[in-house]
């Protein structure tokens, strides 16, 4: 019993450390990738090729004066940045990153916990992150954050729905909500081959959930100054950013598990490479894709975003579910 608890604790610790590493270097990757896309170098002076930049950023934000907006609702104002990072940390618990291994005679699953409703759990915790933005926007008692909060509430509700519907196709094919089962199903062929439309819809909805361009309306800095985090400074501000990159990491990880074969190698002759390495490679690829999107596209307008969601993505997601069901009935399962 005690050993089991220790094993879980160690797994949690490792996962948390890896997540934080991804968050820290996610910020650097963002700046480096944007730099190279825009024909410049990005951060270069902290350590070789700017590798210590995340540390410098963190220190700087840590020592900044913590300004609290005078007329704000204090409880919610303090709560919002805390909520920002919690969903991502909650979500990593169900993400499998490798096949079970045997260590000192014990079989250890490379997932903190393999619950049978993992996907439902993921959707449930990820919808928490909207509270961070809504609370942040409303409690600041300032007009620009309010507009950011308003936008995000509408955006999250619409895209949460589409995110859920896009995953339905996968669940129908596999017949399980467990991420481990879903990855096992993809041993020979990735899910993206069976469910290409679902994958595209998932990526769009995920980008919207993450507030990334072209859907970064809640914090559109050219319109709303900083959006919901305009009134935040110092580490509170940093928490929103930690949350954003942690959510990006988790969303990429979920995309890898659902559509890109999880820890399995894409070709059989490369299967000697350990599963977790494949997992990280795929995760980084999806992460890069999100960065790439941001530095290429302009931003949607609020009403266009809603139209896009309800008039195009929602029917498409429904069509995908119907088509999947139809094929399954006709051919008795894929």
């Amino acid at each position, binding site marked *: 019993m005690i050993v089991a608890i220790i094993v879980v604790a160690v797994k949690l610790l490792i996962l948390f450390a890896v997540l934080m590493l991804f968050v820290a270097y996610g910020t650097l990757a963002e700046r480096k990738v*944007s730099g190279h*896309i*825009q*024909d*410049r170098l990005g951060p270069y002076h902290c350590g070789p090729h700017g590798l210590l930049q995340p540390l410098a950023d963190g220190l700087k934000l840590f020592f900044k004066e913590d300004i609290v907006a005078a007329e704000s609702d204090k409880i919610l104002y303090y709560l919002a940045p805390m909520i920002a990072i919690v969903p991502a940390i909650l979500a990593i618990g169900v993400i499998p990153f490798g096949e079970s291994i045997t260590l000192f005679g014990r079989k250890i699953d490379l997932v903190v916990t393999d619950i049978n409703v993992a996907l439902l759990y993921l959707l449930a915790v990820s919808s928490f992150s909207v509270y961070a933005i809504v609370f942040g926007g409303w409690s600041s008692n300032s*007009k*620009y954050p309010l*507009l950011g909060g*308003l*936008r995000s509430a509408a955006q999250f509700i619409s895209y949460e729905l589409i995110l859920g519907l896009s995953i339905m196709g996968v669940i129908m094919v596999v017949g399980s909500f467990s991420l481990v089962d879903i990855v096992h199903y993809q041993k020979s062929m990735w899910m993206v081959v069976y469910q290409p439309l679902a994958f595209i819809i998932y990526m769009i909805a995920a980008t919207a959930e993450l507030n990334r*361009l*072209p859907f*970064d*309306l809640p914090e*559109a*800095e*050219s*319109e*709303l*100054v900083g959006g919901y985090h305009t009134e935040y400074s110092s580490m509170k501000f940093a928490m929103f950013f930690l949350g954003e990159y942690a959510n990006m990491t988790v969303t990429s990880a979920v995309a890898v598990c659902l559509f890109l074969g999880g820890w399995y190698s894409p070709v059989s002759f490369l299967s000697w490479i350990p599963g977790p390495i494949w997992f990280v490679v795929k995760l980084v690829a999806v992460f890069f894709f999100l960065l790439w999107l*941001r*530095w*290429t*596209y*302009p*931003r*949607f*307008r*609020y*009403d*266009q975003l809603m139209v896009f969601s309800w008039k195009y993505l929602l029917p498409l997601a429904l069509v995908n579910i119907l088509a999947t069901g139809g094929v399954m009935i006709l051919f008795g399962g894929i």
Partner: protein
Amino acid sequence: MMEKGLMDKGSVEGQVVDYLMRETLKTREMWINMGPQHPSTHGVLRLILALEGERIVDTEVVIGYLHRGMEKLAEAKTYPQFLPYTDRLDYISSHAMNFGYVLAVEKLMGIEVPDRAQYIRVMMAELTRISSHLLWLATHALDIGAMTVFLYCFREREMILDLCEMAGGARLTTSYFRIGGVAHDLPDGFIEQAREFCRIFPKKAKDYDDLILKNRIWLSRTVNVAKISGEEALNLGLTGPNIRGSGVYWDIRKDEPYSNYDKLDWEIAVYDGCDVYARYLVRLKEMRESCKIVSQCLDVLEKLDGPVMAKVPKVIKPPEGEVYASVEAPKGELGFYIVSDGSPKPYRLKIKAPSFANLISIPTMVKGHMVADVIAAIGSIDVVLGEVDR
């Protein structure tokens, strides 16, 4: 937050809903201050917006945060002394500002400017136009969220600034023109470097097109947004690319040619979309046309020798009288109206700044649109507050 247009306020139901919203729910429009400190009001423009949700009910433009009293200052300076002040009008296209001022003084004094100086002036003015439009495209795209275009544009603008530095010694506030010509002749190597720019610019301009010209999101953000018809634009006194984006053929370089523009071969860029996208297309085409003008000037300058300064008296004392001269600055018609009493200082100097007139169109353009469209509209009319407030 009731959306306009959803409910007809004339009908009984509409009136009831309106009453309920206003009286029982106590809804009212939200006033927000956009600027003078705001990332995309391009300097110190301040807009007061009345919002219903995100929809704009009313807009008020507040200016004056950059007022330096230029026109009054001119009365205390001699004619040559005022020239550097004109740089600070539209500080990102200072050659064009210089051009307008020296033309007015020359017209007042009847000075004939040597041909070589004319070509140098036209070339520098057109280079400035490209650089101004590049800065506009960069910031406009940034406002709409396409951040990469920003740095691509700055890359080419840098080359133009290098050319400005070669010619006049300064990169931004150049003061290269003089009453009667230009400060000095072009240095060695200038023509080659300018040719290199003209050679690569069309290729680089394709990069900008690849990023946004046909992008779905860009189109949906700009097409049919912030429309202003040609007639309204004329009534409001719009000039430059803004009025050409509303389908009005009006370009001072063609209609009232000054300097050597009538000897050069180029086209006016006119699109009749009346929206943000049309104004964007106009400027894109203008950049390419300007590039054509620059190469033609370079062709002439290679062969043409001669002085770059007319014979002007040491102390510039225009005869009594008044004069108005205007040029097509990158933002529109820039005019200088000078009243001279025969002394070395102007009795009165009035500047007709294009951005000032263009800015007036904002409330007309954005009414009924959303907050995000205000940003697109401000970006599309390309204001520089240094010129608006003077």
